[in-house]
């Protein structure tokens, strides 16, 4: 966190607070459609956090995929349900849900604290800054995907196969019998 400048820190905290607020709203709001819109806003704040961490490609991908596509999917799914204004009902399972969620959160916090996060040395920070700080990361991502010797070409093509499976699965599920 200390490598961030003041501007980035301010942006990070604004987006973080807004994001958490929106996420609480998604759960608390009764109208499902409004909950979906709050979720879209939450996606946007995550994009903002990526931006404040200098991950510009991630931010744009987040806006494009999550705000552009996933939100359309979620809103369509919400509009397919009948009683959307009575949605998000509370039932007697909430106590169990609370226990399980608290346990899950405890586990996540434990993992966060227990993991030894790899940090880079000061000299390396300088080197990274020289290459990466002032330019967009898109080229660097392309470089690491398509490099002949140590690129990630196989995962890239496997992603295509996965998307293909998603298309065929979606059509097979929705198509009239």
């Amino acid at each position: 966190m200390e490598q961030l400048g003041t501007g980035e820190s301010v942006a990070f905290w604004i987006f973080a607070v807004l994001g958490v607020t929106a996420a609480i709203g998604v759960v608390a709001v009764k109208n499902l459609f409004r909950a979906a819109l709050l979720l879209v806003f939450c996606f946007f704040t995550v994009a903002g956090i990526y931006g404040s961490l200098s991950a510009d490609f991630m931010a744009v991908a987040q806006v494009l995929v999550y705000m552009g596509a996933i939100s359309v999917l979620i809103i369509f799914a919400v509009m397919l349900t009948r009683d959307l204004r009575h949605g998000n009902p509370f039932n007697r399972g909430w106590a169990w849900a609370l226990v399980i969620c608290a346990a899950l959160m405890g586990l996540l916090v434990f993992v966060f604290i227990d993991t030894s996060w790899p940090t880079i040395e000061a000299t390396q920070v300088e080197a990274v800054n020289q290459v990466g700080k002032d330019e967009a990361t898109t080229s660097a991502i392309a470089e690491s995907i398509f490099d002949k010797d140590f690129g990630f070409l196989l995962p890239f093509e496997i992603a295509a196969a996965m998307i293909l499976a998603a298309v065929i699965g979606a059509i097979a599920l929705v198509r009239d019998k």
Partner: protein
Amino acid sequence: MLENLGTLGLFLAVAIIFPLLLIGLPLILRYSGVIPQNPSEAKQDTYECGMKPFKEAWTQFNFHYYTFAILFVVLDVMSVFIFPWAARFAGIDKGDVQVWERGDQIWALVAVIVFVVILLIGFLYAWKKKALEWK
């Protein structure tokens, strides 16, 4: 790079302030008594001019829309994967980074063609199963 995002932030601020202004200005004028309030049925209508609304806007969507939404998500993800390649291939954001050499360029081109061909199979499948047609 962050300076560019700063410009984006400025744009964002304007984009937030502008609609707030458009909504807030009539409210302020209304409550400060500048604008008189004589509500009538026509004024309270959803559309003051145009077709008369005849039922609620909250209706169930036709589930056929869902196929299109899923196909859209898929093609969107594909565009995200292709974008870095395109930016690098054309050297759009190169700065002082060199554009690929010939061999690397062809290598990357072949990789992306394989990627697109795999996805085209899905598209042809959708076409053949008439998922793109509206019934």
